[in-house]
């Protein structure tokens, strides 16, 4: 029996975690918490710990989301068992073997995990999602211990919806150190607006204070998956590429034809972004002007 914590039947990462568990063989039990339960990581983990004992589970899995990783870390702490985060493969055995993601996906690690039950989270997109139905889910309530319930969500503040969100945008136009200044982003903003896309940036730009961290694409920023990613003056450090590897296509605009981003890009224009980006914007206006009635 393998227990899988799921956020909901609709959640894609949860569907991937269930598919991952099914591939291991044996019975799979998706577990979720009743909708009225405020998120309380230690209390939820305590419930999972009690289920492990009651059902004699040999593995507990969860999606490799912030919450999935947090819950299984708590389960690992409570049971004093090892936990492997963001696995792309799991071979049961003693010890079990896992393949897991490091450096935001820039590196993989083969590891042994010597614990029972096996605790692991499933890296996003490690396997294809398999839909499962609501009735398959065991709905549970959070454990009642006061210490465990001390940490729980007391309030949800809704985000003010301003413009296209970076994570969901179909087009992202990003600037790196090569933009040179906060003001230099005017040309990036102009192109993004013409394309109905979002503005992004690299970590170097955020560290310099040119753009807010909410614009940062990367391992410690936002992970994006646009139809096209236009990366201007970005060299392509692993920290950055970990955030944009979900892009369907990458266009790099860079003065250096040897920049490492070119090894991950589909298209490149070599030269100064301050000349090239405005020229692309002008060409878009020209094309639109010609097709306007």
């Amino acid at each position, binding site marked *: 029996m393998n227990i899988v914590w799921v956020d909901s039947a609709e959640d894609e990462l949860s569907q991937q975690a269930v598919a991952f568990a099914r591939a291991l063989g044996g019975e799979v039990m998706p577990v979720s918490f009743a909708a009225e339960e405020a998120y309380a990581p230690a209390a939820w983990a305590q419930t999972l710990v009690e289920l492990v004992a009651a059902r004699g589970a040999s593995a507990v899995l969860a999606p490799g989301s912030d919450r999935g990783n947090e819950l299984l870390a708590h389960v690992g702490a409570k049971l004093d068992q090892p936990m492997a985060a963001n696995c792309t493969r799991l071979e049961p055995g003693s010890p079990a073997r896992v393949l897991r993601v490091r*450096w935001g996906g820039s*590196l993989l*690690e083969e590891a042994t995990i*010597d614990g029972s039950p096996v605790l692991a989270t499933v890296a996003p997109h490690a396997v294809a999602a398999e839909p499962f139905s609501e009735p398959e889910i065991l709905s549970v309530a959070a454990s009642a211990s006061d210490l465990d319930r001390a940490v729980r969500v007391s309030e949800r503040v809704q985000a003010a919806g301003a413009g296209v969100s970076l994570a969901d945008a179909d087009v992202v136009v990003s600037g790196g150190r090569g933009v040179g200044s906060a003001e230099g982003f005017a040309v990036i903003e102009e192109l993004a607006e013409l394309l109905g896309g979002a503005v992004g940036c690299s970590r170097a730009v955020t560290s310099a204070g040119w753009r807010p961290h909410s614009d940062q694409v990367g*391992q410690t920023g936002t992970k994006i998956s646009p139809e096209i990613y236009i990366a201007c003056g970005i060299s392509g*450090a692993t920290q950055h590429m970990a955030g944009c590897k979900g892009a369907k296509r990458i*266009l790099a605009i860079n003065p250096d034809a040897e920049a490492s981003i070119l090894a991950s890009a589909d298209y*490149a224009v070599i030269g100064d972004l301050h000349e090239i980006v405005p020229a692309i914007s002008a060409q878009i206006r020209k094309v639109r002007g010609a097709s306007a009635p």
Partner: protein
Amino acid sequence: MNILVCVKRVPLTGGRIVLTEDQRAIQTRHLGFTVSPHEECAVEEAIRLVETHGGSSTVLTLGPAEAEEQLRDMMAIGADRAIHLTTDGLEWDPQATAAAIVDAVRAAGEAFDLLLFGNESADAGNYQVAIRVAHALGLPCVTGVKALAIDGGRLRAEQEVAGGRDVYELGLPAVVTVKEGINLPRYPSVPGRMRAKRKPLEASAPQRPPARLEMQRLIVPEGPSKQAEILGHGPEAAPRVVEILQEIGVL
């Protein structure tokens, strides 16, 4: 208010990761080192909290002798003292790391009101050391925090979630893990670097227990191995770029 911040020394990987011959580590001969990004923000947050509420900040690392460089860097931006749990360079698994930190916290001459960590290290990304430390010390733990406020012995923490922010309110002492973006870390000044050399650093060498999550080998994933199509040089390439934007239907 006394704060402990735990950090990890990691290489600045640049554009391409190359492994050592035995495939058990990154080839770092030509690389610089830093503190994981989330942790750098944790140190900045500790310094700001001490500036506001008084008290002191202590930075701790488990790592090789060379990790003193990162401890001095963090003292250069304002941490008051450091604890160095030295290793022989071998990787410690999350359980062993947490146990060593717990021992160090218990051995420290002071009680900490707040223990700050990064949400996950840049390299191993195990997402669990802070939670294990909190559990062992019987403290509450909030993770992935993007805004932190402390008032009258209680803390309010905000965590980014899809569509908004979740708010947690709890009493001190507590363990909090932060994410980059909670603040913009300051750079060390020259006088800061001078002062850091004289700040107290306490070193000890804990025994490494057997790993229960044990790395066997690292693999550089095969990327789609692309050769970017050069659309042109300079602004003359603009018409070709726009053709492509039209072809893929984003224009």
